[in-house]
Each structure stands twice: as C-alpha cells, then as structure tokens.
C-alpha cells in the first residue's frame, strides 16, 4: 500500500467510523442500516422484482408513454406500484454505494475478495443500465434525454454502421423494435443480476443475503409510505420537435446527463473510462505491498484431530477436510491459500490449536499472553482484549484508562484459552471488546466468539472459568466512549467481587492426543 492508498483508506475509515457510531446510537447495532447495506440492496431488488412484474402487465410497447400515464392515474395500485419500483431503484443505488464504500474502507477488496469487488461493480453497472432502460421505457422527457445522450456516446464507438442517434432526431418515426429491444434489456439485465449475485457471494460462507426482518420491513414500509404519499412524478411526454421544458430528472440514475451533455463524446468516454478503471482496479492498487500482506493459515497436521470445527467456522470456505497422508484414520483440515483472507478465525476454532495464520495460532496467542503476564503484574485488575479493527481504536495503545490492553487481530480469532489463562493468572476480569457482529471485517468473528464464550461452541471457554470475570462488549471503530463506559461499569462490578487470586501453576488442557505441555513446548 502506497502512502497515498493508506491515506485514502484512513480517510474512508475516518468518515465511516463516526457514521457507524451515530447509527448504532440511533438504531442499535442490530439494525444499523450501514452495516447491512449489501443485504438491504437484496431487499430492494426483491421489491423491484415484485413491483416490476405488476408494471409489466400494463406496459405497452406501442404506446409507451400513454400506458405509463394510465398506470400513474391508477391511484389505488398502479401509481404507488410504479413509485415503489422507482424509489426502490433509487435506494438501491444509494445502498450499493454505501456497501462499496464500506468494503473499501474495511480493506475488503483485494486478494480472494477481488472477485466480489469486480462482480459487485459489474452488478452496479447492470443496475445503472437497468435504470436507464427503465426511464427510456417511460418515454418522457428524461427518457428521451437519456436515449439521445446514450446514442451520441455510443456512436463514437465503431459498433454501428450508421449512427443510432438518428433514431431520435425526428427524421423518421421511432421504430417499434426500439421499444421492444429496450424492454427486453430492462427485463433481461436484472435477471442476469441474480447470476451476478451468486458469483458475488460465492466466496463467502453463509452469505448474509437478508438484513434482520425488522430492518427489511422498515425499509419496505418507508418506501411504500413515500410512494403513496408522494408518488413519483411523470415528466411530460418525449417530443422530438420541442426542446424539453424543465422536467423531473432522477439524480441517482441521470446524474451524469448535465455534465455529459456539455462535453464532447470522446472526453465523456475518456473520463468515465479512467474513473471506472481506477475503481475496478482497487483490488490491485489498494492492496498492501507483498511483504505486508498477512499470510494465509496453515494446518499443523500432527495436531489436527479432524474435528471439522475450523471447516465449519471459516467465513470464507477456505478450508477443506481431506484424507490424511499418515496412518491416522480421521480426515485432516487443509487451507486453500487462494481463498484464505487470513482472518485467523480458524485459530479461535481449533481446540488443539492446530491451525491459524503464522504467529497467530492459538499456541502463538498463548505464548504471547504468557509473556504478557510475566511482564505485567495483573494485580487483580481488568485486562482489556481488544480487536485492532474496531473497539474504538483502543487496541492501538498498550493501556486504556489505566487498564492494560492486549490487541487481537479480529476478536473472533482469539482463542478462549487466552481468556482462561488471564483469569487463572489473577486478572480481576477480562473485558473483550469486539466489533458489533455485523460490522466484523471478517464477517463472522464476533458471532463465533460469543458462542464460544457463552454457548459452548467448540473451542469453548472452559466451565471452570469464572464467568463473572469475563465480559464481551461490542464497539465499532468510532465508539471509544462505549468502551470507556463498559470498562468503568465492569471495573465497578469486579470491585464488588472478592479479590482475584492467581493460581500457582496454570495448566490448560488442550484437546489433543499429545499432552498439552508437550504441545506448548514446541
């Protein structure tokens, strides 16, 4: 990552973090629409699909404007169906842009995610073309402007034997084939989007395609209310023999029109190609330099018991269970480095600590925490274990409000034995600060962490650990105050307990056919 890229990314994060923080305060992290922007797009696409099918029954290629006008006059259903179709399409553009910005800010664009980045952009382009053809279908002033400007730009390409701009100059009547082709594109392209979405999420496990139900219904209800109370305007009919009067223009789809109309076609092509190129190539220019890229996970085949937990937990389906090379019967985990994003979540999944990115496996974490305990007198105080991506940014310094801080690269990658070791070594309490579940840069870290701490998910926190001394809080990057408040409350609660006493010799049992100590010694 060049200094420029790094600065761009930091700027993006500094915009995203406070926005996330505000949304969490207003709507709680569960319903923060910014967290669910990608899934909100899916809801919007479903609304567009349902309303679009209805509209299709009334649309006439032979009399496009008149048929839409009839729909708009149908106040009891047609008018708001049409408006809902339109507003959902507008909202989809906004949601995609937020989703995209989020992925960029969270460094989720390169490596195995490049496929999602590129396919996402293809879907965005298809969304735009669907919108443009949708407006051309209406054949009002905006439709005509789009058609004429689109034709002017396309005519620069050596695609057509004669300029298609001729279609819209009034020399001849508009051919019916034009509206047919346009309708075909408007229907076929969104169908292709389904395929695009399948590719888009093909590298993630358990893709979160839908937001929580409450958010889906709120979005749908709000758009519906808008459609009923403020139906989308229908511009005057396209007239090839009049310059358009002032007419409604949809900024989300036609934002480029005023600019483009004022530029020569070649410079529109040049500037839009350059811009698209820069965005399309984000996975290549915005990735860290080779030596700074985190290495993919590796499996220690001797330690792996074939329990399949990492295979289940990996959010990127980067792990396969394969037959072993040695005499043991069970299968062994194998990481595909081309799919692994090095989130480290598998390190937290593996009870015998047999998998994880180099120097971040459970064993490495345990070694680090031992060193930490030998360096710092715990003195029954609260230790903060904080995710380096979120957690109000507290992981950046060794102390927060006087409490020692242990940074972890994704809270979901933390092995629960780290917590056990701290508590049994005399920490008054362990405050684990993770990003809110839907904010996780690695998708499923906080979800698995919570289940390991409180619901006995494999690689669970052992029952002998005093749960009163362990607390999990969620805080995004911009929520330092949340961490501060949580720490204060936890410190007060710990103060009310008996003073923590360190055990003489902390023995952890690590599920493996080898004695734990032997494993740890390595």
């Amino acid at each position, binding site marked *: 990552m060049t200094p420029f890229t790094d600065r761009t990314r930091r700027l993006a994060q500094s915009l995203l973090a406070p926005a996330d923080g505000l949304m969490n305060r207003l709507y709680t992290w569960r319903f923060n629409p910014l967290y669910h922007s990608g899934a909100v797009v899916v809801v919007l696409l479903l609304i567009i699909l349902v309303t679009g099918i209805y509209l299709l029954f009334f649309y006439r290629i032979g009399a496009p404007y008149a048929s839409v006008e009839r729909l708009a006059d149908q106040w009891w259903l047609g008018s708001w169906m049409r408006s809902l179709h339109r507003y959902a399409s507008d909202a989809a553009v906004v949601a995609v842009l937020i989703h995209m910005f989020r992925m960029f800010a969270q460094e989720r664009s390169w490596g195995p995610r490049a496929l999602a980045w590129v396919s996402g952009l293809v879907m965005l382009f298809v969304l735009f073309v669907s919108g443009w053809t949708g407006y051309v279908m209406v054949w009002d002033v905006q439709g005509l402007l789009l058609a004429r400007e689109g034709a002017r730009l396309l005519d620069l390409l050596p695609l057509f*034997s004669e300029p298609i701009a001729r279609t819209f100059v009034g020399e001849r009547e508009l051919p019916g084939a034009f509206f047919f082709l346009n309708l075909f594109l408007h229907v076929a392209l969104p169908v292709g989007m389904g395929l695009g979405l399948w590719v888009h999420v093909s590298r993630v496990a358990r893709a979160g395609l839908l937001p929580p139900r409450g958010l889906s219904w709120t979005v749908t209800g709000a758009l519906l209310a808008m459609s009923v109370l403020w139906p989308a305007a229908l511009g005057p009919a396209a007239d090839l*023999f009049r310059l358009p009067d*002032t007419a409604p223009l949809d900024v989300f789809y036609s934002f480029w029109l005023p600019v483009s109309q004022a530029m020569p076609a070649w410079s529109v092509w040049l500037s839009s190609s350059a811009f698209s190129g820069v965005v399309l190539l984000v996975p290549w220019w915005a990735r860290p330099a080779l030596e700074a890229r985190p290495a993919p996970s590796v499996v220690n085949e001797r330690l792996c018991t074939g329990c399949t937990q990492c295979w289940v937990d990996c959010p990127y389906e980067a792990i396969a269970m394969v037959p072993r090379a040695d005499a043991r019967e069970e299968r062994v985990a194998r990481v595909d480095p081309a799919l692994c994003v090095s989130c480290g979540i598998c390190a937290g999944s593996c009870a015998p600590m047999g998998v994880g990115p180099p120097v971040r496996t459970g064993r490495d974490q345990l070694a680090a925490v031992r060193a930490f305990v030998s360096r710092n007198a715990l003195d029954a105080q609260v230790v903060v274990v904080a995710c380096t991506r979120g957690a109000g940014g507290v992981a950046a310094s060794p102390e927060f409000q006087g409490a020692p801080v242990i940074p972890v690269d994704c809270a979901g990658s933390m092995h629960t034995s780290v917590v056990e070791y701290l508590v049994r070594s005399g920490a008054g309490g362990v405050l684990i600060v993770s990003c809110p579940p839907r904010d996780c840069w690695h998708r499923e870290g906080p979800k698995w962490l919570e289940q390991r701490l409180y619901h006995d998910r494999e690689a669970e926190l052992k029952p002998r650990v005093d749960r009163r001394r362990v607390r999990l809080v969620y805080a995004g990057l911009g929520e330092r105050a949340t961490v501060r408040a949580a720490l204060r409350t936890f410190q007060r609660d710990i103060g009310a307990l008996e003073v923590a006493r360190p055990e003489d010799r902390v023995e952890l049992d690590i599920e493996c056919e080898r004695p734990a100590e032997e494993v740890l010694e390595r």
Partner: protein
Amino acid sequence: MTSGMRVVGGVLALAAIVGLGALSQVPYPPEPPAHAVIRLTWRTRSKRVDECRRLTTEEQAQLPAHMRREEVCEGRVLAYRLRVVLDGDTVADETVEPRGARADRPLYVFHEIPAPPGVRVLDVAFVREDSLRGATGGDEGTTGGDERATGGEDSAVREGRAGRVQETPAVLQFSERLELEPRQVALITYDPERRALVLKGYGQTP
C-alpha cells in the same frame, strides 16, 4: 435507547426518505430554454467513383500470375460540403465525409443550431465535392476526366442504372424564412421522394 434518540432516529429516517424522493425528481434544466433550435439531419448516399490506372508492363510482371491484370482501380465515395447561413452569419461550413472505416458508407449530417425565437432566414447548401466550383444552381455536377462511376458497394450510388431515385443530387439547397417559437425544433431533412431538403416537424410529434 432513550426516547430522545428514538425521536432523532425517526427524524433522520424521515429526512433520508424525503431526500431520496426529492433527488429522484430534481427539476432539470433549472431554467427552461428560451431559444429555438434548427436541426439539420439527413442521411444520403453519395456518388462512388473509381479512379483507374493502367499498369505498366513491369508492374504487371511483379504481380503473381493469378493476380495479374491490366488496370487497377481505387474506389472512393465523394464527400459533400455543408454550409449553413443564418440571418447572414455562417454558422456551419464543413466537409461531410462518408462514414465507415473504409469511408464507403452513407453520409450523415447532424447539426443543431440554437436560434433566438422570431423570424429567421436560413440558407443551407449541401454540395458534392465534384460540383463545388460555382455550384449555386440546381443542376448536377458532371464528372469528367478518367473518373468512372461504378455499381460497386450498396452504399454508393449506382450510376447509369434505370430509376436513379436513390441518387442524391450533387447540389441541395434550402432557403427559407422560419418563424420560430421558444423551444421549437425546426427540422431540415432530405426527402428522397422530392430529392430536396425540406422543413419538417415544426411542433408536431411524428
């Protein structure tokens, strides 16, 4: 969540959705245009000429046996010159070349000339390059020398065939007073039946 937060959350959501609705229908252009437009648009097929030359004996000898012939011809579709004068001012004066990678496709004219509303005097001359010298009248220019029109490409005019309706005259002229209303588009186009530039549109939708 406090009730204050709930109110702020509700207001923000409302603002977002109303903002969406507003941006979905922004009046454009902010000011309706006051001018009118004279739109010149037509597509014509121009004349194709083959310029042929006899090959010398040496040149013929250099060609492979199966490609040997006595003359080589190079075909070309002639361009036109377009000149538009509005109220005595020249607003366009340019050469219209045949389109296509090999410049053998029809010619295409498209010009939009903004004009203040009111009475305007428009003069358009569209003259084939071989008739440029002193071309003001309506007669077609004749080709001379060793040029030879051929029936080659479909896009070019086939000269010498029966029914030359397809052919565009070498000189097209249009001279008229137009009464333009604000935002009106006066369309000047080529009518192949009348073989002349005609005024169309003027307010009606085709």
